[in-house]
Each structure stands twice: as structure tokens, then as C-alpha cells.
């Protein structure tokens, strides 16, 4: 039977490969069946072991380390996160993530809405969507340098404004501040928002708007009473994803500020690289704090996302 099967298969495929001697077709009974059942489990166990060894174990070690001092269990390192320096890093990271998520939400949402209008030219729509896929993935070091060339102290736009008599740096702007980072992050947050929210906007049915119009609703009433309530879970879910995306960003702020801005990921890297004199436990506590924030954000996200799916087929 099995040999017959091999031949049939060889007849279908043009280039034949020899079957490894050890390979036993499933369903031949006896020891063959046994091995046939074992091989798939081998791969499942392999994958799970990989995850445990290189993701779960390192993370657990960090968490344990964050709570272990010279004399066993201690909360001193986690409490140390309240020290001015680290509290500032967490505060900055959270402010930056909230601000850049808000900017992404508003502008990404409006842009997605604009290009989905029936009156928008088709080529514009596909251009914006494909550019978004690129920009959402264009980040890190190159993005930082693109913005340094643009809005840095010697950037073209900065110099251009200076020629017009406007010195944006003396007006308090700096690319290397939270404001500057928020603007830089917008380069990947806005397109990411557009990609995330487009399915939800497409699921808004034209009939809802027509029904509202038919009953004499103004555009504002339609959005306040129908549109936004329906979109709310999707918008909240998107906001949380954008928040997380910004909160864990490391390469962009590092390249932009050369490691000199108080953000949690930057502080962790400074501990890791030995740039600052501090115990490894401090780094572990910072990492643990970061994971906690991300876990809370994603747990809320998973609840909200389930609600958001209600209006989609």
C-alpha cells in the first residue's frame, strides 16, 4: 500500500525526491504509527521549550532579581523606582506614550476617514495605504536621523525658519525633548493608526448615516449619537496599541538623544551597558515595571478589542 502511494505521489510531482529511510508514512501501523504520532509532538514540545528557555525564563529571572536582595526577598528595588530619577523616567515615558498615541489617534483617524470618503480619488487612497505600511515600519535609527536633518538644531526646517526670522529653538522647541519625540513618533504612530482603524471605519454602514440624515440629524448629532459610540471601542483599542507601541520604543529615542533623555528603556540600557553605576537589580526592577505597564495595557486592550469586534462581520 505504502509503496504504491509513493509512486502515485511521484507521478503527481515532476521532480521526485528520495524519501529519507527513516520516514515512515502515517497509518502503516505498529512502530511506524508510534513514531508518526511522536514527530508532531516533538515539534510542539520544541516550540514550547524554545519559548520557555528564551522568553519566559529570562523574564522570570528579571522579576525574581527585582525582588531579591542580599538577604533574600526585598521590595527595596521596586520601591527604588519611586526615586526621583526613575519616577521621572516612568513619568516621561507615560506622558510621551499618551501624547504620541493621542496625536496618532486624532490625525491617523482623520486621515483614514478622509481617504475613505466616496469622493476621495482612488489613486490617493491606495497611495496613502501603501505609504502607511512603509512608514509604520520605518522607525528607529533612520527615522531619528531623518528628523535630526529636518528639525535638529542645524536641520533644514529649523534653518529655513531662522532665515524667516523665526528661531524655533529660542522659542522653546527642541527635537530632543518630549515634544520633539512626540512629533518624531507621529511618523510611525499616524500610519499605524490608519492601518488599525481602517477596517472599523469601513464597517460603518452608509445606511446609518442616511437614516440619521433622513431624520434630520446634523453631522454633529450623527457623530455624537451614532458614529462615535459605535467607534468608541475600536478607537480605545487603537489608542492602547499606539500607547504600547510608543512605550516600548527604544531605538528612535536612543538615536535621537544619544541616550540622554529620561525614558524607561533608555535608563535600562544605561544600566545594561554600565554607563551608570547601579546594581543590575535596578535594571531588573525597571524592566519589571515596564512589563507590568505593558501587561496592564494589553489586558485592557484584549477586553476592549472583543467589544470592538461586535460591529464587524
Amino acid at each position, binding site marked *: 500500500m505504502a509503496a504504491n502511494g509513493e509512486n502515485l505521489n511521484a507521478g503527481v510531482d515532476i521532480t521526485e525526491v528520495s524519501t529519507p529511510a527513516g520516514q515512515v508514512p502515517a497509518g502503516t501501523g505498529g512502530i511506524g504509527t508510534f513514531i508518526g504520532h511522536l514527530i*508532531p509532538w516533538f515539534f510542539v514540545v520544541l*516550540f514550547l521549550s524554545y519559548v520557555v528557555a*528564551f*522568553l519566559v525564563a529570562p523574564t522570570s529571572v528579571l522579576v525574581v532579581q527585582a525582588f531579591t536582595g542580599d538577604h533574600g526577598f526585598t521590595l527595596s528595588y521596586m520601591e527604588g523606582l519611586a526615586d526621583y530619577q526613575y519616577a521621572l523616567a516612568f513619568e516621561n515615558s507615560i506622558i510621551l506614550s499618551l501624547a504620541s498615541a493621542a496625536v496618532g489617534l486624532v490625525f491617523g483617524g482623520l486621515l483614514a476617514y478622509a481617504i475613505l470618503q466616496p469622493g476621495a480619488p482612488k489613486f490617493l487612497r491606495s497611495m496613502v495605504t501603501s505609504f502607511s505600511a512603509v512608514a509604520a*515600519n520605518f522607525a528607529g535609527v533612520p527615522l531619528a536621523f531623518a528628523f535630526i536633518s529636518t528639525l535638529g538644531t542645524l536641520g533644514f526646517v529649523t534653518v529655513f525658519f531662522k532665515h524667516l526670522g523665526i528661531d524655533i529653538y529660542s522659542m522653546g522647541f527642541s527635537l530632543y525633548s518630549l515634544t520633539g519625540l512626540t512629533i518624531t513618533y507621529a511618523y510611525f504612530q499616524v500610519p499605524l493608526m490608519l492601518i488599525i482603524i481602517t477596517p472599523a471605519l469601513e464597517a460603518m454602514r452608509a445606511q446609518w448615516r442616511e437614516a440619521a440624515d433622513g431624520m434630520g440629524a446634523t453631522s454633529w448629532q450623527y457623530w455624537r449619537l451614532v458614529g462615535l459610540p459605535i467607534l468608541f471601542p475600536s478607537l480605545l483599542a487603537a489608542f492602547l496599541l499606539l500607547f504600547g507601541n510608543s512605550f516600548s520604543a527604544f531605538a528612535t529615542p536612543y538615536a535621537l538623544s544619544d541616550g540622554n533623555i529620561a525614558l524607561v528603556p533608555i535608563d535600562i540600557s544605561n544600566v545594561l551597558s554600565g554607563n551608570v553605576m547601579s546594581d543590575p537589580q535596578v535594571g531588573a526592577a525597571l524592566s519589571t515595571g*515596564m512589563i507590568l505597564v505593558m501587561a496592564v495595557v494589553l489586558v485592557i486592550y484584549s477586553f476592549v478589542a472583543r467589544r470592538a469586534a461586535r460591529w464587524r462581520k
Partner: protein
Amino acid sequence: MNKRLSLFNWGIIALAALFFFVPLAVTGVFSLWQGGSRYGFSAYFLLLNTSGFWASLWLSFRLAVETILLSFFLLVPSMIFVHLKAQWLKPLFEFISNLPFVIPAIALIDGLTTLYTGPAWLISTPNYLVIPYVFLALPYAYRSIDVGLTTLDVKTLTEAGQSLGAGWGRIIFWVLLPNMKAALIGATLLTLTIVMGEFTFASVLLFHTFAVFINDTGQNAITEAAALSLFSFLITWLFMLGVLITGRRNPANLGGAH
């Protein structure tokens, strides 16, 4: 209904066009600057003759390919099996595929360096990076393969293969994988994009990948760094174009490593 875009919508589109185009254009102009008012391609020629450029580009590319191979090796057989015979494991797999979102790269590398201080053959070569890179790629690879599997009638295909006497290896390589081509190509290109631009792991572990090379260049040669940034944007563009062409609109294709 009004079939034309309102002024407000045009305003938003124009503002976005300005915001997204200006940094690219400026970076392009900057890369051509040769001091004073002279412009030319000298930054590009300089780069082509820098050994670090080719070495780091090749290293990042090699790591990306290794990451893709390892991810598929770990995911494809086990996911096919879970899909067919062990659906009860699916929630666990889904949970794992989302873990990399919860554990930021910088925290993961902190944990990895704490836990593994040897053996030297593992942690002293750039290949070590492939281990965490698999997790960077995991959410996207998982979702692409999952989409590929759910749109296929895996059960019928597998049973057909088995009744013809094919073993698991043959079914996977000759029946299932060819049918999941689009999904796999999407995941491959996305992984390429992410790994080619990855900075966090490589910079902490002090390996000279492409993103680290760009950062080092930027410390003293800004026009070269601008040229590299533009080049890196073009790479991203190229790969994402491939993603868009092969996989229709696939929600798996989001985000990257920032």
C-alpha cells in the same frame, strides 16, 4: 450625498502629505550636501567604499534569513499539528504569539544577558541575535501562518495526502506549504524589514548590524547617515511593497521594532 471631499478633508490630506514628505525630501537633500553650497553624490560613493557598510548590511541580511528559517522551523510543523489534532493548544499558542508585545525588547535583552552568560560559542557570535529576533518576528509569523491555515482545508488536504501514502514531511513540504505561499511570503518580507532595521538587541550586545552601523556613522558623518537613512527607507519600501502585492490586505502586517 455629497460626492466631493470637503475642504477640511483636503486640508488633512495636505497636512499629512507635508508632514510625511518633508523629512524624506530633506534627508535626501542633506545626503547630497558636500559642504558650503556644493551638492553631489560623494556621501554615497564614500559609503560604497566603506567596508563597514557592506559587512553590516550583509550581517543584517544573513540574520534576517536565519531568523525566518528558524521561525518557520519552530512554527510551521507545530502549528499544522495543533490545527489538525490539538485544537485545545491553540489558545496557548495565541497567548505566546502576543507575549513579545508585552515584553519590550529592552526588557527581554536585560533578561537574556542576566540568565545566559555562556556558552561562548553561543553568545559571542552575532548569530546569538537570531534567538531574540525570532520573538520579534513571532507575532507576525504566527498570524500569517494562522491565516494561511484557516483559509486552507488542511484536514482534507492532509487526509488526501495520507491516503496516498505520504508522510508528514511530504505533506508539509509538498501539499500544505505551496498552498500557504502568499501568507508565508508576507511573513518573510515583514521579518526581513524588522530584522534589517533592528537596533535594540544588537546595540546592547555590541554587534555591528546595519542599524548599529547607521547609528555609529551618525556620530561623526551626518551626510553619510542621511544617505543611509534614505537607503534604509528604500529597503523598507521595497519589502513592504512586496508584502502589499503578495498578501492582500492582511491585518497581520502591522508595526515593527521602534
